[in-house]
Protein backbone atom coordinates (compact mmCIF):
# COMPACT_ATOMS: atom_id res chain seq x y z
CA UNK A 1 0.00 0.00 0.00
CA UNK A 2 2.76 2.41 1.02
CA UNK A 3 4.62 1.41 -2.13
CA UNK A 4 1.66 2.41 -4.33
CA UNK A 5 1.47 5.77 -2.56
CA UNK A 6 5.18 6.38 -3.21
CA UNK A 7 4.67 5.46 -6.89
CA UNK A 8 1.76 7.92 -7.16
CA UNK A 9 3.89 10.67 -5.59
CA UNK A 10 6.60 10.02 -8.17
CA UNK A 11 4.18 10.38 -11.11
CA UNK A 12 2.72 13.52 -9.50
CA UNK A 13 6.19 15.05 -9.07
CA UNK A 14 7.12 14.20 -12.69
CA UNK A 15 3.97 16.06 -13.85
CA UNK A 16 4.60 18.95 -11.44
CA UNK A 17 8.11 19.43 -12.90
CA UNK A 18 6.72 19.67 -16.45
CA UNK A 19 3.74 21.94 -15.65
CA UNK A 20 5.56 24.36 -13.32
CA UNK A 21 8.49 24.66 -15.74
CA UNK A 22 6.29 25.41 -18.76
CA UNK A 23 3.97 27.83 -16.98
CA UNK A 24 6.91 29.62 -15.30
CA UNK A 25 8.63 30.19 -18.65
CA UNK A 26 5.47 31.61 -20.27
CA UNK A 27 5.03 34.02 -17.33
CA UNK A 28 8.71 35.11 -17.52
CA UNK A 29 8.34 35.78 -21.24
CA UNK A 30 5.25 37.91 -20.56
CA UNK A 31 7.19 39.83 -17.88
CA UNK A 32 10.31 40.43 -19.99
CA UNK A 33 8.11 41.92 -22.73
CA UNK A 34 7.10 44.63 -20.22
CA UNK A 35 10.73 45.25 -19.23
CA UNK A 36 12.23 45.75 -22.69
CA UNK A 37 15.83 45.24 -23.82
CA UNK A 38 18.69 45.15 -21.31
CA UNK A 39 21.86 47.06 -22.31
CA UNK A 40 25.28 46.08 -20.97
CA UNK A 41 26.08 49.65 -19.78
CA UNK A 42 22.80 49.72 -17.83
CA UNK A 43 22.91 46.11 -16.64
CA UNK A 44 21.45 47.00 -13.20
CA UNK A 45 18.20 47.51 -15.13
CA UNK A 46 17.84 43.70 -14.84
CA UNK A 47 16.92 44.07 -11.13
CA UNK A 48 13.73 45.89 -12.20
CA UNK A 49 12.58 42.43 -13.25
CA UNK A 50 11.94 41.62 -9.58
CA UNK A 51 9.17 44.24 -9.24
CA UNK A 52 7.21 43.03 -12.26
CA UNK A 53 4.17 40.95 -11.10
CA UNK A 54 4.39 38.57 -14.08
CA UNK A 55 8.04 37.83 -13.32
CA UNK A 56 7.30 37.35 -9.59
CA UNK A 57 4.52 34.88 -10.47
CA UNK A 58 6.87 33.18 -12.96
CA UNK A 59 9.55 32.88 -10.27
CA UNK A 60 6.98 31.36 -7.84
CA UNK A 61 6.12 28.71 -10.45
CA UNK A 62 9.82 28.09 -11.07
CA UNK A 63 10.34 27.71 -7.29
CA UNK A 64 7.64 25.00 -7.31
CA UNK A 65 9.46 23.44 -10.25
CA UNK A 66 12.75 23.56 -8.35
CA UNK A 67 11.33 21.81 -5.27
CA UNK A 68 9.79 19.02 -7.40
CA UNK A 69 13.02 18.78 -9.37
CA UNK A 70 15.14 18.37 -6.21
CA UNK A 71 12.75 15.74 -4.84
CA UNK A 72 12.89 13.80 -8.11
CA UNK A 73 16.71 14.04 -8.19
CA UNK A 74 16.86 12.59 -4.67
CA UNK A 75 15.44 9.26 -5.93
CA UNK A 76 16.19 9.19 -9.68
CA UNK A 77 19.02 9.63 -12.18
CA UNK A 78 19.62 13.05 -13.78
CA UNK A 79 19.13 11.51 -17.25
CA UNK A 80 15.72 10.18 -16.08
CA UNK A 81 14.50 13.51 -14.65
CA UNK A 82 15.74 15.75 -17.52
CA UNK A 83 13.07 14.67 -20.06
CA UNK A 84 10.44 15.89 -17.60
CA UNK A 85 11.94 19.39 -17.81
CA UNK A 86 11.93 19.10 -21.63
CA UNK A 87 8.24 18.17 -21.42
CA UNK A 88 7.79 21.67 -20.01
CA UNK A 89 8.28 22.94 -23.60
CA UNK A 90 5.25 20.92 -24.67
CA UNK A 91 3.28 22.67 -21.91
CA UNK A 92 4.73 25.99 -23.14
CA UNK A 93 3.56 25.28 -26.71
CA UNK A 94 0.00 24.60 -25.50
CA UNK A 95 -0.07 27.65 -23.21
CA UNK A 96 1.34 29.89 -25.99
CA UNK A 97 -1.41 28.64 -28.29
CA UNK A 98 -4.22 29.03 -25.76
CA UNK A 99 -3.28 32.09 -23.65
CA UNK A 100 -0.81 34.13 -25.72
CA UNK A 101 -2.68 33.26 -28.97
CA UNK A 102 0.59 32.56 -30.79
CA UNK A 103 0.41 30.50 -33.96
CA UNK A 104 2.08 27.14 -33.44
CA UNK A 105 3.36 25.87 -36.83
CA UNK A 106 3.18 22.18 -37.90
CA UNK A 107 6.98 22.02 -37.37
CA UNK A 108 6.49 22.98 -33.74
CA UNK A 109 3.75 20.38 -33.28
CA UNK A 110 6.18 17.83 -34.79
CA UNK A 111 8.74 18.94 -32.19
CA UNK A 112 6.13 18.56 -29.45
CA UNK A 113 5.38 15.03 -30.68
CA UNK A 114 9.09 14.04 -30.69
CA UNK A 115 9.63 15.39 -27.16
CA UNK A 116 6.55 13.51 -25.96
CA UNK A 117 7.90 10.27 -27.49
CA UNK A 118 11.31 10.84 -25.87
CA UNK A 119 9.74 11.49 -22.46
CA UNK A 120 7.44 8.45 -22.76
CA UNK A 121 10.40 6.27 -23.70
CA UNK A 122 12.57 7.22 -20.74
CA UNK A 123 9.71 7.38 -18.20
CA UNK A 124 8.87 3.70 -18.82
CA UNK A 125 12.49 2.66 -18.20
CA UNK A 126 14.35 2.26 -14.90
CA UNK A 127 14.61 5.45 -12.86
CA UNK A 128 17.87 4.81 -11.04
CA UNK A 129 21.19 3.22 -12.07
CA UNK A 130 21.53 -0.11 -10.25
CA UNK A 131 25.06 0.11 -8.87
CA UNK A 132 25.30 -3.63 -8.20
CA UNK A 133 24.14 -4.75 -11.65
CA UNK A 134 26.17 -2.10 -13.48
CA UNK A 135 28.06 -4.64 -15.60
CA UNK A 136 25.05 -6.69 -16.74
CA UNK A 137 23.61 -6.34 -20.25
CA UNK A 138 21.88 -2.96 -20.38
CA UNK A 139 18.97 -3.93 -22.66
CA UNK A 140 17.92 -6.90 -20.50
CA UNK A 141 18.34 -4.85 -17.35
CA UNK A 142 16.02 -2.04 -18.47
CA UNK A 143 13.29 -4.34 -19.85
CA UNK A 144 13.29 -6.27 -16.59
CA UNK A 145 12.90 -3.08 -14.55
CA UNK A 146 10.10 -1.92 -16.89
CA UNK A 147 8.18 -5.16 -16.37
CA UNK A 148 8.66 -4.88 -12.63
CA UNK A 149 7.42 -1.29 -12.50
CA UNK A 150 4.42 -1.71 -14.81
CA UNK A 151 2.04 -3.83 -12.67
CA UNK A 152 2.33 -1.38 -9.78
CA UNK A 153 1.45 1.57 -12.03
CA UNK A 154 -1.53 -0.28 -13.49
CA UNK A 155 -2.62 -1.24 -10.00
CA UNK A 156 -2.46 2.33 -8.88
CA UNK A 157 -4.39 3.67 -11.89
CA UNK A 158 -7.13 1.11 -11.21
Amino acid sequence: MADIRVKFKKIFIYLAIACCNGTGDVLLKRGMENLGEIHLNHWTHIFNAFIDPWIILGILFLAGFFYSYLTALSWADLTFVLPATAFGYVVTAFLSRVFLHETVSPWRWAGVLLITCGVGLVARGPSLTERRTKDTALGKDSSHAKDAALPKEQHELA
Partner: protein
Amino acid sequence: MNSLKLWTAIGMLVLASSAGDVMLSAAMKRIGDLDLIRVEKGLLGVIGHVVREKLFLLGLCCLIFSFFCLLTALSWGDASLVAPASASLTYICSAILAKFLLHENVDRRRWLSAALVCVGVLLLVK
Protein backbone atom coordinates in the same frame (compact mmCIF):
# COMPACT_ATOMS: atom_id res chain seq x y z
CA MET B 1 27.99 41.22 -33.56
CA ASN B 2 24.58 40.96 -31.99
CA SER B 3 24.31 37.27 -32.81
CA LEU B 4 27.83 36.64 -31.40
CA LYS B 5 26.73 38.37 -28.18
CA LEU B 6 23.55 36.28 -28.09
CA TRP B 7 25.33 32.95 -28.69
CA THR B 8 27.97 33.78 -26.06
CA ALA B 9 25.16 34.30 -23.56
CA ILE B 10 23.50 31.03 -24.66
CA GLY B 11 26.85 29.17 -24.40
CA MET B 12 27.44 30.48 -20.86
CA LEU B 13 23.85 29.60 -19.99
CA VAL B 14 24.27 26.01 -21.25
CA LEU B 15 27.57 25.41 -19.44
CA ALA B 16 26.37 26.93 -16.16
CA SER B 17 23.06 25.08 -16.12
CA SER B 18 24.59 21.67 -17.08
CA ALA B 19 27.26 22.02 -14.38
CA GLY B 20 24.56 23.11 -11.90
CA ASP B 21 22.32 20.14 -12.78
CA VAL B 22 25.13 17.63 -12.33
CA MET B 23 26.14 19.15 -8.96
CA LEU B 24 22.51 19.17 -7.74
CA SER B 25 22.04 15.56 -8.80
CA ALA B 26 25.20 14.48 -6.95
CA ALA B 27 24.19 16.52 -3.88
CA MET B 28 20.64 15.07 -3.76
CA LYS B 29 21.98 11.51 -4.03
CA ARG B 30 24.20 12.23 -0.99
CA ILE B 31 21.27 13.66 0.99
CA GLY B 32 18.88 10.76 0.23
CA ASP B 33 15.14 10.54 -0.51
CA LEU B 34 13.57 13.95 0.29
CA ASP B 35 10.09 12.44 0.78
CA LEU B 36 11.38 10.15 3.54
CA ILE B 37 13.22 13.03 5.23
CA ARG B 38 10.06 15.17 5.06
CA VAL B 39 7.98 12.44 6.68
CA GLU B 40 10.56 12.14 9.48
CA LYS B 41 11.60 15.75 10.10
CA GLY B 42 9.11 17.98 8.26
CA LEU B 43 9.70 20.61 5.58
CA LEU B 44 12.14 22.61 7.76
CA GLY B 45 14.16 19.45 8.28
CA VAL B 46 14.36 19.01 4.51
CA ILE B 47 15.53 22.60 4.02
CA GLY B 48 18.08 22.14 6.81
CA HIS B 49 19.48 19.00 5.20
CA VAL B 50 19.62 20.55 1.75
CA VAL B 51 21.27 23.90 2.61
CA ARG B 52 24.00 22.20 4.66
CA GLU B 53 25.19 20.31 1.58
CA LYS B 54 28.07 22.33 0.03
CA LEU B 55 27.70 20.73 -3.39
CA PHE B 56 24.05 21.85 -3.46
CA LEU B 57 25.05 25.47 -2.72
CA LEU B 58 27.69 25.38 -5.46
CA GLY B 59 25.17 23.92 -7.93
CA LEU B 60 22.66 26.57 -6.89
CA CYS B 61 25.21 29.35 -7.61
CA CYS B 62 25.68 27.88 -11.11
CA LEU B 63 21.91 27.83 -11.67
CA ILE B 64 21.47 31.42 -10.41
CA PHE B 65 24.22 32.53 -12.81
CA SER B 66 22.50 30.62 -15.64
CA PHE B 67 19.19 32.31 -14.72
CA PHE B 68 20.75 35.77 -15.19
CA CYS B 69 22.28 34.59 -18.49
CA LEU B 70 18.77 33.44 -19.51
CA LEU B 71 17.19 36.81 -18.66
CA THR B 72 19.95 38.61 -20.57
CA ALA B 73 19.70 36.29 -23.59
CA LEU B 74 15.89 36.65 -23.59
CA SER B 75 16.25 40.42 -23.76
CA TRP B 76 18.70 40.16 -26.70
CA GLY B 77 17.00 37.47 -28.77
CA ASP B 78 13.66 35.88 -29.53
CA ALA B 79 12.27 33.69 -26.75
CA SER B 80 11.36 31.13 -29.41
CA LEU B 81 15.07 30.85 -30.32
CA VAL B 82 16.74 31.27 -26.91
CA ALA B 83 14.64 28.82 -24.87
CA PRO B 84 14.70 25.81 -27.24
CA ALA B 85 18.32 26.31 -28.37
CA SER B 86 19.65 26.53 -24.81
CA ALA B 87 17.42 23.67 -23.62
CA SER B 88 18.46 21.21 -26.32
CA LEU B 89 22.17 22.02 -25.87
CA THR B 90 21.83 21.75 -22.07
CA TYR B 91 20.09 18.42 -22.53
CA ILE B 92 22.94 16.85 -24.53
CA CYS B 93 25.64 18.49 -22.39
CA SER B 94 24.01 17.20 -19.15
CA ALA B 95 23.60 13.65 -20.52
CA ILE B 96 27.32 13.55 -21.40
CA LEU B 97 28.32 14.96 -17.99
CA ALA B 98 25.95 12.53 -16.21
CA LYS B 99 27.54 9.60 -18.01
CA PHE B 100 31.14 10.54 -17.29
CA LEU B 101 30.95 12.41 -13.96
CA LEU B 102 27.98 10.74 -12.23
CA HIS B 103 28.59 7.31 -13.91
CA GLU B 104 24.89 6.99 -14.68
CA ASN B 105 23.75 4.05 -16.75
CA VAL B 106 22.89 6.03 -19.91
CA ASP B 107 21.66 3.08 -22.00
CA ARG B 108 20.34 3.02 -25.60
CA ARG B 109 16.86 3.94 -24.40
CA ARG B 110 18.16 7.14 -22.75
CA TRP B 111 20.42 8.15 -25.65
CA LEU B 112 17.50 7.64 -28.06
CA SER B 113 15.27 9.68 -25.79
CA ALA B 114 17.96 12.39 -25.52
CA ALA B 115 18.20 12.52 -29.33
CA LEU B 116 14.39 12.63 -29.77
CA VAL B 117 14.02 15.42 -27.21
CA CYS B 118 16.94 17.37 -28.71
CA VAL B 119 15.57 17.18 -32.28
CA GLY B 120 12.07 17.93 -30.96
CA VAL B 121 13.29 21.03 -29.13
CA LEU B 122 15.16 22.20 -32.26
CA LEU B 123 11.98 21.75 -34.35
CA LEU B 124 10.27 24.16 -31.94
CA VAL B 125 12.52 26.93 -33.36
CA LYS B 126 11.09 26.42 -36.90
